[in-house]
């Protein structure tokens, strides 16, 4: 490196600090995130100061209000035109406020709201020592089966921390798809991942499995984010900046080359390709695409079911949002390099998820694999690289997240002595025991399978249509085949529920409180509305489907 550069660097550093102009932050436009984060902090304070008796109510109140308010804020912003015309980059280029961001934030907030309902459900488990209990450990710190745990249960402790944790996670997720530079992306990633790791470990029943899930999720997640970070480093090295806009310009070669000293790194495609690939890989890990999917089944199975539902829905939304922005804003100039690779990933993800799911025996693992297959379908839309691609993915995410939440909410209802009866054999004849619950679950399964008149079909159709228009016909064909395979195991569950005789020692269906009922009802409503009359939401997604650069 030339001494002049060093000198310049030194001089810049050595300049007398005249004055730092304060960064300009558009608080109004960031309000959704800010509301949620601050609510989370309030939640922490509640933990600290509110007496244990009333914490639960306080926390639920805070989270619900905050999420509702944040959602209202999102709606307000969208109505204010930020989703379309006034969309721009806020917070000194760190966060984008535009259609996709707002749409996904809205979806995440609603999902989070519903998830909080299922978190707050405390009618399913039989009362322990006269205290209503939810699906979270009485005291996370106490060793499973130990006296301390029994004491905690007896004392009626509950882990009300889950609410602030969830809020933090949601906060991170809100930023994730809106992040407009790689640093923000990374920070947001960690902000929503870390609380999730913890939430996974907090199951009340089967705690060992829950902790194992947490460990696996944590280690693999950290591993993945390390890759992401290194990718970011390389991209930074390539472009000399982490801001999406700059990188995009450099990729397009539309930026004036900085001083020749940097020529050897600046625009060095090896850095760009490797870095880009590693960042994308980090995101693929979050969406659970093959071959980065292997954490999914274990974590979904081990985590407390409400958390699983929350993860399955919200994480996918956030991660795909970020992936879209990255591919459409930063790397479009590179599409001829990454598209074939993404093709391959999409194909193996669709087929892999569908095929492995056939032989699953645990309903939660089954749904995990189905979520993998769905990730593949969504990737097919991402690859389309046209406006329809964006809007179709947005629509699919909205449709999918609600179905998922509903499905997992139903899973929490089917219980036996050992807690939730997740083994498929126990679901035999459910349709005879409680036709309503079985019918609702059947609706969700049909939506997963993409049967017409459900949201699943509309979403699948939108995505495949976009892909076909984008020239990815083979993807569509493979997608169709794998949905046929997938149909097989969804049908298997329906057969099990309706056509096989109920077991005498089969599980009972708990009668939920209004909270879970709302979650399920909302799921059904969204599934049917988006299936029968998707026009309005498709328009919404269509208008929202433009990134600001």
């Amino acid at each position, binding site marked *: 490196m030339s001494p002049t550069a060093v000198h310049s660097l030194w001089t810049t550093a050595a300049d007398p600090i005249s004055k730092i102009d304060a960064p300009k932050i558009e608080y109004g436009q960031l309000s959704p995130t800010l509301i949620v984060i601050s609510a989370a902090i309030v939640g922490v304070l509640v933990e600290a100061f509110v007496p244990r008796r009333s914490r639960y109510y306080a926390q639920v109140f805070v989270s619900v209000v905050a999420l509702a308010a944040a959602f209202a804020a999102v709606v307000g912003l969208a109505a204010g035109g930020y989703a379309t015309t006034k969309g721009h980059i806020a917070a000194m280029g760190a966060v984008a406020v535009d259609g996709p961001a707002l749409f996904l934030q809205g979806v995440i907030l609603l999902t989070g709201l519903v998830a909080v309902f299922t978190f707050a459900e405390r009618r399913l488990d039989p009362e322990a020592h006269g205290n209503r209990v939810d699906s979270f450990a009485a005291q996370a710190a106490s060793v499973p089966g130990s006296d301390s745990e029994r004491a905690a249960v007896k004392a009626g402790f509950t882990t009300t921390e889950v609410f602030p944790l969830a809020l933090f996670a949601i906060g991170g997720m809100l930023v994730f798809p809106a992040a407009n530079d790689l640093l923000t992306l990374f920070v947001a990633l960690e902000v929503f991942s870390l609380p999730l790791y913890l939430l996974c470990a907090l199951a009340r029943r089967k705690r060992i499995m829950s902790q194992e899930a947490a460990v696996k999720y944590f280690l693999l997640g950290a591993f993945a984010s390390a890759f992401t970070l290194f990718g970011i480093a390389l991209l930074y090295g390539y472009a000399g900046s982490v801001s999406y806009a700059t990188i995009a310009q450099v990729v397009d070669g539309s930026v004036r080359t900085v001083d020749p000293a940097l020529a050897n790194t600046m625009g060095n495609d090896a850095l760009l390709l490797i870095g880009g690939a590693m960042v994308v890989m980090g995101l693929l890990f979050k969406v659970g695409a093959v071959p980065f999917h292997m954490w999914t089944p274990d974590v979904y199975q081990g985590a407390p079911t409400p958390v699983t539902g929350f993860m399955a829905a919200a994480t996918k939304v956030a991660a795909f949002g970020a992936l879209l922005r990255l591919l459409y804003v930063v790397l479009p100039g590179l599409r001829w390099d990454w598209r074939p690779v993404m093709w391959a990933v999409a194909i193996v993800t669709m087929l892999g998820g569908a095929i492995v799911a056939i032989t699953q025996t645990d309903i939660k693992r089954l749904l995990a694999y189905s979520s993998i297959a769905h990730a593949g379908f969504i990737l097919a839309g991402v690859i389309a690289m046209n406006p329809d691609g964006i809007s179709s993915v947005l629509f699919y995410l909205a449709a999918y997240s609600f179905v998922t939440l509903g499905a997992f909410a139903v899973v929490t209802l089917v219980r036996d002595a050992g807690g939730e009866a997740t083994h498929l054999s126990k679901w035999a004849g459910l349709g005879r025991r409680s*036709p309503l619950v079985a019918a609702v679950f059947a609706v969700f399964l049909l939506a997963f399978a993409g049967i017409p008149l459900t949201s699943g079909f509309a979403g699948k159709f939108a995505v495949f249509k976009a892909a076909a228009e984008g020239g990815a016909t083979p993807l569509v064909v493979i997608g169709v085949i794998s949905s046929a395979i997938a149909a097989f195991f969804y049908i298997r569950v329906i057969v099990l529920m309706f056509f096989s005789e109920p077991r005498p020692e089969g599980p009972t269906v708990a009668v939920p409180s209004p909270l879970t009922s709302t979650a399920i009802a909302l799921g059904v409503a969204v599934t049917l509305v988006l299936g029968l009359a998707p026009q309005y939401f498709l328009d919404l997604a269509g208008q929202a489907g433009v990134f600001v650069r």
Partner: protein
Amino acid sequence: MSFPLLTATAALPAVGAVATAAVPAAKRTAAKWLALLVSLATLVLAGLVLARFEPGGDRYQLTESHSWIKAFGVRYELGVDGIAVALLALTALLIPFVILAGWHDADPLETNSSRWRPTQGFFALILAVEAMVILSFEATDVFLFYILFEAMLIPMYFLIGGFGDRAHAGSDEKAAAQRSYAAVKFLLYNLVGGLIMLAAVIGLYVVAGNFSLQEIAQARADGSLSMATGTERWLFLGFFFAFAVKAPLWPLHTWLPNAMGEATAPVAVLITAVVDKVGTFAMLRFCLQLFPGASRWATPVIMVLALISIVYGALLAVGQRDIKRLVAYASISHFGFIILGIFAMTSQGQSGATLYMVNHGISTAALMLVAGFLISRRGSRLIADYGGVQKVAPVLAGTFLVGGLATLSLPGLAPFISEFLVLVGTFTRYPVLGVIATFGIVLAALYTLVLYQRTMTGPVKAEVSAMPDLKVRELVVVAPLIALLIFLGVYPKPLTNIVNPAVQHTMSDVQKKDPKPAVEAAQ
């Protein structure tokens, strides 16, 4: 905007389905009557459609069109041509009989489970199927049709798997297992077909930019929309595959015997007489109109497959031990005739095929329902368990015989006309195929008469000696069907008048003309 008659015809049973499902568990009979009344009201509406339809008029009549999903270029477009009207009438006509025939099929065996309401479910599902089938006959928007084509699988699936035939050879578990196997097989076959069609539907959109049958067909006709030959063929295959599974065409037929064997007789009628017709109907309406070139290209292969279906189905029918499976294979053979007629691309062939759809619906309904009554009495589906029934239950035997004679298309009964038209239509273009297909009539006689001889004649078996003859309800089901068979056999003109113009349109779509007789040709 006049009264949306077509929508009403489909909406009525849909609403009825919901209402029936909502009837409280205790009020079983009320649910039955409600369903019956709804289906009769639907029949009245169908009659109105028939009355309002002018055979000479526009190709599609009583049209309705509303915007539905702009983003997909999908409109809610309805309209009926002669073919659709005929099939719509058939559907609306058969459902009341199906309901009446299945009156006791869904009475719960154990009354303890109060929340479980099979009866309501059974009749609600039947009405749901009716609604979807009717709407799919009316839909002139490819997407709308596709949605219904797929969606109707679900109620059918529950009807097959949930309400199996109680007369089962094996134990209960075995019965349940076989039943759910049949249901799953039915669903997966048709789902796979449908999904492959989905790819083609999307492809069609990418090529054509919208889903309106009329617009696309128009554009194809005036050449403003040209498809690459390859594309057209792929799309055609995608569509045809789904319809061939539904129809069913050899070798995609194996789901039908299982489904019809395991389902109750009325549901079996629903499958083969109503739902499967959507497949053959769609071949006429979509394959030929949207992809005329590809249709002509694929004709030879399809004709051969249809021929195989005819002979193969008939031979397997001869080999069956189970009454309902026998009827199922007979139906496969008949569907072979229908497809043969459609792709013969002659006005006789296609009119014949359309008539065939209607007549086969009625005749199979008659035969299958009587078979159902027979089976419900003896509690067995095996032919070997019967014998000499005509002695103890002459009326039952008589109606059964008439149904059988209709199945072997005896002149004077409706199926004869359609079958002969199909054969003539085929013969005029493909003499050899026509001749081979004609052998089907001998085989048909074989399996029908063997069935009748083994079950109805001979010395009276001990088990059937106390068998009661047809009850009034059952007579009410069978008699009108038989009367209809005879009427349409002697005076099919009302039907042909409606169908012929539509067929002329289809013929012009595929740019085919009837071959001239040799004598005229010579002059």
